[in-house]
C-alpha cells in the first residue's frame, strides 16, 4: 500500500518537475494533462442477439483501463471507459455518436458494421478519430483517416492463410466454401478462393442462409458435389453445426476443413466440441503463446466468464486502450477542451503510424491506419485448444 502511494506520489512529483522544465524550455515534448480523468467513450453493441460479443469487447476495454489505472493512469490521470449502447441499430449508433462527437478526444467502436456505416460519417464530419478495430479493412477504409483497421486489405492477407492450409493438404483439388452473406464476408470468401486458386485448388460456394434452423440439407448439397475439403466463411455457431452435420454424413478427414478467423469465437468451441478435433483454423493471435500480460488477462477473463476461455476477438479493444495511452503520452495531448480539434488530429496521426506497438501478445507497427507487419497463424484444433501449425508471413 505504502509503496504504491509513494510510487504514484513520486510519479506526480517527477511529472510536475518535468512540466516546469518543459514549460521553461518549451521544447514541445509531452505536456501534462489538464483533465481530471481521461474519458474514452466506447460505442458498443450491448443489447440484442449479438450482445455476447459486445459484452466481452467491453470487458477487455475495461480490463485495460483497470490495469492502466493500477499503474498510475495516463499522464497521472485515471482513464475511464464509458459505454454507449448502440444495439445493432444504426439509428441508436448515430444518436450515441452525436452525444460524444463534440467532446471526446478519441473513441472506441462502433462495433457492428451497421453501426459503423451509420455513425462514422458523423464522426468524419466532426473530426473524431474512432477506432473501429474489430471490423475489416473494407469498412474502415471508407472513413480513412478517421478510422483504423486491425487488418490489412482482405484480399491480400486472407489469401496467403488459405493457401498455407492448402499446401498442408497436397491431394486436395476441390473445396466447397460455406459462405454466409453478411457484411464483408462475401469478399472475404472471394479472398479465400483466390488464395486456394493460387495453389491450384478449385473452390465452389454453398450459401448458408442466415435464418437456417438445421443444416442437414446444406451438407447433403455440399457432399453431392464430391469435394475434397471444406472452407468456412460463416458465423461461429453455424460453422460448428455444419461440421457436426458433416460428421453425421460420414466425413472423417477433419484436416481438410478450414475455418476463417471471424469464427474464432466462443460459440464455435462450445457448440462444436469434439467434432472440431483436427479442423484447421486461421487467426491473428496465438493464444497458446504465454506472455505475462496475456496470462493475467486470460485468468481474469475466465474468472468473469464462468471458466470460458477468451478468443482472439476478445483482446482487440484491450490493445486499443493501450494504443490510446501511448498516443496521449507520446504527444502533446492535454485533454484541454479548447485544443480539442488539434489534439484529436495529433492522436489520430500518431496512432495511424504507431511504430512497434507493444500489444498484449506481440508487437507490431501501423502504417496509414493498417498494420504493416502482422501475419496470421494457422492452427489445428485439438480438444478446444488451438495448436499453431505455421505462421503465415504478413502482407507487404
Amino acid at each position, binding site marked *: 500500500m505504502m509503496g504504491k502511494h509513494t510510487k504514484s506520489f513520486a510519479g506526480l512529483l517527477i511529472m510536475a518537475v518535468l512540466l516546469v522544465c518543459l514549460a521553461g524550455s518549451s521544447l514541445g515534448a509531452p505536456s501534462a494533462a489538464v483533465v481530471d480523468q481521461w474519458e474514452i467513450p466506447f460505442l458498443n453493441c450491448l*443489447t*440484442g*442477439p*449479438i*450482445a*455476447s460479443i459486445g*459484452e466481452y469487447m467491453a470487458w477487455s476495454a475495461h480490463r485495460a483501463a483497470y490495469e492502466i489505472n493500477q499503474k498510475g493512469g495516463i499522464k497521472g490521470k485515471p482513464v475511464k471507459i464509458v459505454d454507449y449502447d448502440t444495439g445493432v441499430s444504426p439509428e441508436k449508433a448515430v444518436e450515441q455518436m452525436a452525444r460524444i462527437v463534440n467532446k471526446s478526444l478519441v473513441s472506441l467502436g462502433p462495433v457492428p458494421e451497421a453501426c459503423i456505416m451509420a455513425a462514422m460519417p458523423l464522426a468524419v464530419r466532426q473530426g473524431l478519430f474512432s477506432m473501429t478495430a474489430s471490423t475489416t479493412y473494407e469498412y474502415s477504409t471508407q472513413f480513412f483517416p478517421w478510422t483504423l483497421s486491425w487488418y490489412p486489405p482482405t484480399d491480400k492477407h486472407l489469401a496467403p492463410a488459405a493457401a498455407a492450409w492448402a499446401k498442408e493438404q497436397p491431394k486436395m483439388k476441390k473445396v466447397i466454401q460455406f459462405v454466409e*452473406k453478411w457484411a464483408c464476408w462475401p469478399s472475404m470468401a472471394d479472398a479465400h478462393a483466390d488464395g486456394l486458386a493460387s495453389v491450384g485448388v478449385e473452390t465452389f*460456394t*454453398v*450459401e448458408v*442462409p442466415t*435464418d*437456417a*434452423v*438445421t443444416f*442437414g*440439407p*446444406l451438407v*447433403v*448439397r455440399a*457432399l*453431392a458435389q464430391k469435394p475434397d475439403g471444406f472452407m468456412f466463411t460463416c458465423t461461429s*455457431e453455424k460453422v*460448428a*453445426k455444419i461440421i*457436426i452435420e458433416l460428421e*453425421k*454424413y*460420414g466425413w472423417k478427414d477433419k484436416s481438410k476443413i478450414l475455418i476463417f478467423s471471424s469464427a474464432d469465437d*466462443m*460459440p464455435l468451441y*462450445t*457448440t462444436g*466440441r*469434439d*467434432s472440431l478435433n483436427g479442423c484447421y483454423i486461421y487467426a491473428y493471435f496465438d493464444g497458446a503463446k504465454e506472455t505475462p500480460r496475456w496470462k493475467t488477462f486470460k485468468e481474469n477473463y475466465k474468472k468473469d*466468464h*464462468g471458466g*470460458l476461455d477468451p478468443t482472439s476477438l476478445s483482446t482487440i479493444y484491450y490493445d486499443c486502450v493501450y494504443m490510446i495511452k501511448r498516443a496521449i503520452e507520446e504527444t502533446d495531448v492535454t485533454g484541454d477542451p479548447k485544443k480539442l480539434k488539434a489534439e484529436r488530429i495529433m492522436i489520430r496521426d500518431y496512432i495511424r503510424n504507431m511504430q512497434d506497438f507493444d500489444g498484449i501478445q506481440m508487437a507490431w507497427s501501423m502504417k496509414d491506419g493498417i498494420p504493416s507487419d502482422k501475419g496470421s497463424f494457422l492452427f489445428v484444433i485439438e480438444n478446444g485448444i488451438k495448436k499453431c501449425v505455421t505462421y503465415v508471413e504478413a502482407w507487404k
Partner: protein
Amino acid sequence: MEIFAAQLLNGLSLGSMYVLLVLGFNLMLLVAKIIQFAYPHLVVLSMYVCWGVLRHTDNMLLVVLASVASCIVVNVAIEPIFRLLAKRHGLDINVSFVVSMSMALLITDVMSHLLNYGYPIAFPTEWVGKSIFSSGLIAFSAGQAYALFGGIAAVAAFFYLLYRTRQGRVLRAISENSLLSSIIGIPIIKTRVLSYAIAGLLGGLTAVMFARLLGSASPGLGDFVGMKVVAASILAGLGNLKGGLVCGLLLGIAESMAIGYLAGSWSNAIAFMMMLVIMLIKPEGLFGIEA
C-alpha cells in the same frame, strides 16, 4: 434420387418440429383467440431449462419433466395477461400480436443478457446421437428419429385428445362459439387455461425434441422459428389445425428442398416468393380460416 431422399428425410424431421409448434400456436389461437407470436420463444426458453437441468443430472425423465413443467408454468403464467388484454380490448387478435411480439423481444433479450453470457447453449453430443442409419448421402441420426417419431406420437395424442375426449369436445366447442359455450355452461376461463397448459405441454415436448434434433440453441433461435411458424399458420389459414399440420410439414420439406436444390443466395427468397404468390391469390390461406 439419393439426394432427393436425403433431403426429404431432413425436411420431414424439421417439418415435424414445425408441425408441433404450429399446433400449439393454433390451439391458443382457436381457444384463447390470441396470436401467441412468442410461443416458439417460450419453447427455446424451455430448451435452456433442459440445458440447465442436464448440467446437474443425466436422468432423461427428469429433463423431460423439467422442460414440460417449465413450459406449462410459463405459458399458464402469461394467460392472465392475455385475459386482461381481452377484457380491455375485446377479442382483438391484432393487439395480442403486438403484445406477444413484445414478449418475444423480452424473452430473446433476457436470454442474450442473462443466460450463459448470451452464448449459444450446446446439448451433450450423445443427445443428438450418431447416425443410426447411414448409406451414401442418406443419414439418419438418433436426434432426427426422436424428432420425427416423437412428433408423430405427439400429434396423434393431440388429435386424440381433441376429437376423442370430453375435454377435447369442450375445447372445440369454445373455439367455435365461446358465447354459446358459456351459455350452455362450459367454464370458459378454465378451458382457456387448459388450452394454454396443453400448448405448454406440447411446447415442453417440442423443446426436448428440438434439443435432440439441433444439438444446440441460441437466443436468436426463437425469432428464426417464430416467423416460420406464423407463416405456416397463416399459409394454412389462421387456426386451421389440420391445415397447419400439412403446411408445417410442407414448410419443413420446402425449406430443405430450397436449400438443397435452388441457386444459393436466392433459395430462401424463392421460397418466400412462392409463399407470397399463394398469399396474394388466396389471402385466407390454403385451407381457409377457422372460426
